[in-house]
């Protein structure tokens, strides 16, 4: 149910290319903690969809269980959504996306939901290349159950009431690369501009986009020395490049010297412009990724930006030769075989 209908909207409100205001993309008021990184990400999802001029009815939202998974309520009220089970969002989304493959899937999960209970489904949805944006709001703790270590918490992290984490962390971006996701990025909720540009790129990507976004938990894991805190992120963020998303309808106006930028053309004709910073990094070259991530780990850098992209892989739906009409709109006459086939079927039995 829309919160603001076009009729009640102020005539002065700014509208996007399809005539909708930003309110048409908002959700219910958040019930997460004030200052939670997840709220910042929700805002960027609203902004990205608004700026891209996406019809909210064309988005399907998915989530699992946890603080992160509550957040789809807080954006895109006019989009259908399904808040499923802990760690099982990918399967639910896979089935749902088959209903109408022209829709845009935006899924939100957390580090517990994805890297602990949901590791299996996370790996398999990447392997299938389900065209969907898969955001992991990664804060290193279980918030809803009051601050237990998650699988992405760094070894040695101390949390009040939970002692010291003895285990090595799981690196979601690394898992995504190894898991053959076709778009992998990492970002930081404290860098909203980059989050938004990455979201736009991910929405345009025809395949699975895994966005590992460090999203500090202000209540349970925000000490300055924690690797999922705002302070640590601000001090250690090392962007791979300056990233901007250029929609297909706009010309690329910025004038770069050759060798300074990498331009990636997306399936829908839009472009991602990656401006070189200190180091050379080509996100289309798989062979360098793990070295780069390993080096960043050693140097304690929070590497952000587009880590990997491959725009040429077939998606899950490319394997199914589905009708142009969405499956969920096929009339019953097209899903029940005609009556004259039944005799043929009986003859095929013995």
């Amino acid at each position, binding site marked *: 149910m829309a919160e603001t209908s076009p009729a009640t909207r102020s005539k002065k409100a700014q509208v996007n290319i399809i005539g909708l205001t930003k309110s048409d993309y908002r959700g219910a008021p958040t019930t997460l903690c004030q200052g939670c990184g997840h709220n910042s990400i929700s805002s960027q999802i609203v902004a990205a969809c608004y700026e891209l001029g996406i019809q909210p009815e064309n988005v399907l939202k998915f989530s699992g269980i946890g603080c992160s998974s509550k957040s789809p309520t807080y954006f895109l009220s006019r989009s259908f959504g399904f808040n*499923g089970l802990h760690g099982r969002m990918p*399967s639910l989304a896979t*089935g749902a996306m088959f209903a109408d493959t022209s829709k845009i899937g935006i899924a939100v999960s957390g580090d517990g939901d994805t890297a602990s209970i949901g590791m*299996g489904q996370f790996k398999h949805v990447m392997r299938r290349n389900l065209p969907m944006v898969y955001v992991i709001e990664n804060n290193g703790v279980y918030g809803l159950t009051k601050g237990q270590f998650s699988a992405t918490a760094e070894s040695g992290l101390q949390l009040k009431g939970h002692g010291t984490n003895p285990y090595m962390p799981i690196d979601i971006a690394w898992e995504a690369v190894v898991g053959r996701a076709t778009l992998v990025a990492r970002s930081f909720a404290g860098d909203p501009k980059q989050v938004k540009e990455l979201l736009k790129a991910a929405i345009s990507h025809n395949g699975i986009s895994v966005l590992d976004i460090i999203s500090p938990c202000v209540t349970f894991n925000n000490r300055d020395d924690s690797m999922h805190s705002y302070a640590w992120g601000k001090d250690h963020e090392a962007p791979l490049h300056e990233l901007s998303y250029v929609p297909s309808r706009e010309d690329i106006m910025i004038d770069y010297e050759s060798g300074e930028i990498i331009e990636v053309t997306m399936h829908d004709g839009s472009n991602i412009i990656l401006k070189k910073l200190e180091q050379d990094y080509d996100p289309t070259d798989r062979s360098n990724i793990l070295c780069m991530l390993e080096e960043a780990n050693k140097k304690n850098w929070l590497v952000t930006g587009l880590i990997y992209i491959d725009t040429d892989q077939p998606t899950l739906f490319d394997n199914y030769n589905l*009708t142009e009409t969405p499956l969920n709109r096929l009339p019953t006459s097209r899903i029940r075989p005609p009556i004259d086939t039944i005799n043929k079927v009986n003859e095929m039995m013995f």
Partner: protein
Amino acid sequence: MTLPQTLQKDHQIKQEGSIVNDFSITVGTVNGSGSQTSNLTILRALFKMGIPVSGKNMFPSNIQGLPTWYTIRVSKDGFLARRESNEIVVAMNPTTFAQDLESLTPGGAFFYPDDLKMKIDRDDVVRYPMPVKELVRDSNAPRSLQDYVANMVYVGVLAQILGIDLEKINLALDFHFRGKEKPIKLNFDLITAAFKWAEENLEKQDKYRIESMDATQDYIMADGNTAAALGAVYGGVHFAAWYPITPATSLAEALVDYLAMLRMDPETGKNTYAVVQAEDELAAIGMTIGAGWGGLRAMTSTSGPGLSLMTEFAGLAYFAEVPIVVWDVQRVGPSTGLPTRTSQSDLNFAHFIGHGDTQNIVLLPGSVNECFEFGWKAFDIAERLQAPIFVLSDLDLGMNQWMTNPFEYPDKPIDRGKVLWEEDLEDISETWGRYLDLDGDFIPYRTLPGNQHPESAYFARGTGHDEYAKYTEDADEYRDLIERLKNKYESARTHVPEPIIEQRDGATIGLIAFGSTDPAVKEACYILENEDVLCDYLRVRAVPFTKEVKDFIANHERVYIVEMNRDGQLHQLLVLDYPELSMKLISIAYLDGLPASAKQIANAIRNKELNKHG
């Protein structure tokens, strides 16, 4: 299934001293040796000779090497349940040779390879040694195939000794090898050679004979998994997700085959369906629920262990009111249990699956034909009631070949239930809410993703929600919601298939059963009738029970509940539903992994009846 018309009539085939079309053949072989082809060939040839016949594969959870048995029952009177006694035994496996010999009834015929130098210490049976090795050596079979075709020798020898029509054997081979000339010829040549050898070298000494009849022309032969898959295809299934598990695997595989054949859109050459092999059963049902929520006719198929894994998602489907169909081809559990043996022990589990207050609709097909029928009906019920529907088949029904009535085209149009698209939302005068009971029938209206109407979207969830699908922990809202779900479940009593009742004049005791025990129960009633114990028989086809079930219990002095599980699960459900009638209900539950036999059931009822009066 409906039994052949010859049922209960003493068929007029008699010859001095011989027993015609009324005995069982058991073949003991080594798993993976190709014996299934031989056994199915015999079964199908007998069927094509017009003789009522059933075949049951008693196989181990193993690819190659362990003992396996196949029992064929020929019954001129149309009784097709498993029998305990074997009149004909073929012992191809040295490991079980002694055991197989022991299982033979006195006067029975014993066939065995003459190179097995095993002790035969019974004088009351007829021996037929077969020169398997020589016949195979003399055949044209390539060396690599010799072990596989060796089992064709007993097909030929049995055909000659018992009188199985070679032409019909050829038809069976043609079907099995899908018309491929080379394997048909290779196998048939060996069968013919064995037949000729038997003609020249063996003298018939036993009394068992096969003779053509005309009792099968109105039937087809198929397995329940194929039938279920075909039913789903005609039910308009859009989406299936599955994970391999015996004995459900062949259901999904049949679905893949028949969808490709029947559900390519003729206008566009595109598919109107998708099947995904998931990474596990959690993902399989997760995808199914996603698709069901998305407005697809969605299903998954599994067996007990897989159903266990689906529990949390099943609760979500119940609570979020997502229509899906789950086939459970039951095997023996708990845990891995006996993966290749049959049972009816998931009834209570499927019915109550999910945590919290859940009661699910369960359909119980009792024949291969009914697997087809419930294959399409399950979708109509699921979408009408916006609920997960569990269809319980079992290994015996699902994987064995049964003679059954031909599949009938659905007699009702597809019912997609209460769905609102853009124009419906324009037309609707009331405010729409996903969980708002507008019609007072406990079933709300749903919208589907892709709907462009700005009022159409809602956020589905497993958490507490109000009538507009908004999150709430309000006590009244929650109570109202689960009460509506309960009432919706109760309303299913008028949507699910009614029971099948078979009555006998003057019967005062009743018998209730479900699923694949049907032929054994029917035969048990016949046995008991001959002893003047008259039973009416009601076959339950769904939970919740329809009114007829209660009436049946009320109208009988006592009612025996027959089922293949340890704890009497159907009995338990009946007691829960009809506590006032519970003193009439007597459980006859039995499970050893083998399909039920009429003798077991008749004995159990006879004993209880004797104790009652004695």
